Every structure is written in C-alpha cells, then in structure tokens.
C-alpha cells in the first residue's frame, strides 16, 4: 500500500521520504552499535548494509502501521459519532 502511495507521489516527496527513512535507519544502527560496544570495523560493508536495510524495513512497517491505525481511529470516531 505504502509503495503504491509513494509511486503516485512527486519525485521530490519520494526522495525526501527515502532520505528520512535511510537517515533514521542509520541512526538506529549507530545506537545499537553503541549499546553493544561495537565499532564499524566489527562489520563488513555487506553486514552493515544488511543491518541498515533491516532497520529501513522495520521503519517502513512502522509507517504502514501508523497509517493503518490512523485510518482505523478515524473510522472508529465516525462509528462512535454516528
């Protein structure tokens, strides 16, 4: 659903979204490295790419969940109000 939505969005918005998610994923990876007392040398480039890609996937899932929850809440309010 999110992919379809992004396909329709203008290129600048798509790029912005991708950049934000990528930056957030890198932040998460950094945080986990700090937590586990690791350095960037402990991972190969492929492993690091895997870590960031996984985080990116998780963040995309979170966005999907948030959109779905908002839609459900809106529908719930509509039902409650009548």
């Amino acid at each position, binding site marked *: 659903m999110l992919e379809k939505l992004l396909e329709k969005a203008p290129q600048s918005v798509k790029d912005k979204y991708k950049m934000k998610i990528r*930056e957030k994923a890198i932040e998460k990876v*950094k945080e986990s490295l700090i937590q586990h007392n690791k350095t*960037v*040398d402990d991972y190969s480039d492929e492993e690091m790419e895997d870590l960031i*890609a996984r985080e990116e996937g998780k963040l995309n899932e979170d966005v999907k969940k948030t959109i779905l929850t908002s839609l459900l809440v809106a529908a719930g309010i509509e039902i409650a109000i009548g």
Partner: protein
Amino acid sequence: MNKLYQVIGLFLSTKIMFWAYPDSKRFIKGIIIGTLLIILTIYFHNEYINWAEITDNKSFIGTSYIIKNLIILFSIVALFLYLKKPPNKKNNKVKIKGEDKIYTKNKKEDYFDKFRNKDKLKTKAERLLERDGKK
C-alpha cells in the same frame, strides 16, 4: 462529521507539507508575524485616533501617521529580507550521544555516506536470493 474530516485533513496536510518542505514553516512564520505586526499597528493607530478625537488632543496626529506608515514599511522590508535570506543549512546527519566510540582510525563519520547515497540497500537474504538466481 465533515468538519472533523476537514480538521483532520488540514492537520495531516500541514504536517506533510512541513515534513516535505521544511522551509514552508519559515515562510508561514514570517508571513504570520509580519501580518500580525501590521494589523496591530493599524489597530493601535485607530485606537489613538479615536482617543485623540474624544479628548480633542490632536497635536500628534500627523506624527502618528508618519510613525504608523514607517512601522508598516519597516515590517514589509524586514519580512522581505527575512524571506530572501537563505536559511541556515543544517547538517542532516544527526549526532548521537557516544557516537564517536563506534568509529575507528580507518572508518570515520563519513563511513555511512556510502549507504546514504545508495539507491536501494539489500539485506543478506536478498543478496543470497540474487546470488542463487531466484530473484
């Protein structure tokens, strides 16, 4: 119900606009402050004129017009300069507390740039599948 949808729509579209174009926040802020200043100036000037007419104290009315117009002119010029001035380009990279610990002599802060610049990152599974020719 329609009103509620309008409010939710307005809220969401503003959020999306600010997220996609952070500069719009600056633009709207400038316009709102400028307009508010001009409206307040006109309001206080009107109040002063009413007071002057009631009390018959009209000696400073001419000066008040000059001051009012100067304030309005100053506000417009300030707003124009504020909108013209390029915003401070903040570095997109967020510094995390204790981040320096994860870097080494060979790999420093710019290490993550190669991942930032890649179009699509692949997980280990995706790479394996690609290697096996299943994807």
